[in-house]
């Protein structure tokens, strides 16, 4: 009931849907940067949506399974193989004991999430199995995976693999399992400090492309582009920030905060990317160009609600195949 990390890859970590309840103590949400992708991958292998899986950044990961497992992955455009058989995103596959699963480099996007039937069994720390890579706790010894690591998996359940012959015929909607785009438009709602920017700055923010800087990580995507200047330079009182917050430091170069962001910040918040579009945001890599487009808060909620309904239908559809 374990898997061996033959190769750890560029940056691979154990993640679930994140750590909640400890933000007041400065603990980041963390978890899969695209929690929706992990939920879908988990559903495909008949796991609980919140089971711990792997977040794989830029590929290079190679896993060896000691027993039979069902796996599925969602995310960027990766070349994934079971032995030499390609495994496309959004399909469940049955791995036999002793088989290897390999992740190549991504063509588009930079991250993907792998669900393994019964999940990765690392200890729950502060309510989550996520790895906090900044504070070094949770996940597998609080760190990224390395060559030779052996990870325990949850108890094998035959029902999770029995329905799959090789690779499943069923799949999830394409934009759920492959959300990465080369030049995405991210939808946003206005930030609390929106009015602190003049019309010209707002015009730039909403019409011009911003290039993702190499200086981006799980804490945030940084952008190069037209400078966003505030009308005044008065310091703001620090308050909560969250994944999706776009803050503008004095440099005028915006930063889109992602899952591992700090819990509070003092930079002006020009906008927030809507939860639905964090899936695309989690795929941004250096050189990608991004545009921002405004939606109302009510629309953001409506979109989220509609997707949850679709997910519910998908879940029901899946249960016909799996169990």
């Amino acid at each position, binding site marked *: 009931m374990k898997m061996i990390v033959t190769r750890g890859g560029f940056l691979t970590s154990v993640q679930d849907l994140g750590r909640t309840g400890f933000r*007041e103590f400065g603990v980041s949400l963390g978890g899969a940067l695209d929690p929706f992708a992990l939920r879908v991958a988990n559903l495909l292998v008949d796991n609980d949506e919140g089971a711990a899986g792997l977040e794989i950044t830029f590929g290079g990961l190679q896993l060896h399974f000691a027993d039979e497992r069902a796996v599925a992955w969602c995310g960027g455009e990766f070349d994934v193989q079971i032995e030499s058989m390609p495994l496309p995103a959004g399909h469940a596959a049955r791995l036999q004991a002793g088989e290897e699963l390999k992740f190549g480099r991504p063509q588009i996007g930079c991250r993907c999430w792998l669900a393994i039937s019964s999940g990765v069994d690392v200890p729950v720390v502060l309510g989550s199995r996520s790895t906090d890579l900044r504070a070094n706790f949770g996940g597998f010894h609080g760190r990224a995976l390395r060559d030779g690591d052996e990870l325990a998996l949850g108890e094998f359940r035959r029902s999770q693999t029995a329905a799959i012959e090789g690779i499943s015929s069923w799949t999830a909607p394409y934009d759920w399992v492959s959300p990465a785009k080369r030049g995405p438009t991210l939808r946003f709602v206005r930030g609390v400090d929106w009015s602190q920017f003049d019309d010209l700055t707002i015009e730039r923010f909403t019409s011009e492309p911003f290039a993702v800087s190499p200086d981006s990580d799980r804490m945030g995507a940084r952008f190069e582009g037209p400078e966003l200047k505030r009308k005044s330079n008065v310091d703001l009182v620090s308050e909560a920030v969250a994944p999706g917050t776009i803050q503008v430091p004095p440099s005028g170069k915006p930063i889109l905060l992602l899952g591992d962001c700090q819990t509070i910040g003092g930079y002006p918040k020009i906008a*927030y*990317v809507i939860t639905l579009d964090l899936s695309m945001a989690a795929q941004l890599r250096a050189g990608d160009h991004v545009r921002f487009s405004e939606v109302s808060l009510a629309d953001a909620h409506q979109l989220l609600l509609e997707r949850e309904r679709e997910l519910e239908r998908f879940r029901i559809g899946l249960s016909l195949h799996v169990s």
Partner: protein
Amino acid sequence: MEIVPLGDSAVIVRVREQFEDAPEETLDGVVRTFRHLRNAAIPGVIELAPAYTSVAVFFDPVAVTKESAKGGDAFDWLAERIRAVVAAGADRGRRVRTTRSDVRLVEIPVCYDPEFAPDLDEVARHAQISTKEVVDLHSTTEYRVACIGFVPGFPFLAGLPKKLATPRRDVPRKEIPAGSVGVGGAQTGIYPLRSPGGWNLIGRTPLRLFDPTKNPPALLQAGDRVRFRAITRQEFEALKR
């Protein structure tokens, strides 16, 4: 009180506009609001985060929209619930007087030994006083935790004597040892974990400020009163064990 959205899954409840003009009153207000909201357990609310003048309320938009059904707007529904909870809390507050002793006081031993205090000279030079005076001032003042953030368990402490206010270092250090006590602008704080940082380091505590195996994981929380007690190197080593 102002309630503004923080994206589609959180709102910020601003208890007061400013912090510096009345830190004690503001913090008391923030902590009261935080407690009222926590006790109220509004359906769909996931967690709360107090900071300086505000309390952030994180929620599940799908759950809140279901609660606010019949075509109601999720944000409006939640804002209304928050206002009702805070108003009811304020009503109770008028009947039950809270006192200063309701706020816990945490004493933190700090060794100001030169080895732990590479920037003590700089802070003294900036204040135009001796290093001993810096230590005396720093360790005889009572502070309050304005919020926990930056890294898990990091307390931003308000109440630093004006004299000790020192600008952050031009070039942040790449690595600061856990337990380091620093001065950054008008605030003082403690680095709970080995991390980068730009504050001036003037001492070190042997206490663990963040321990993920404990619940709560942090030694301090927003609103706490804090005092530093100067200890010797021997005491530091003994407490560290």
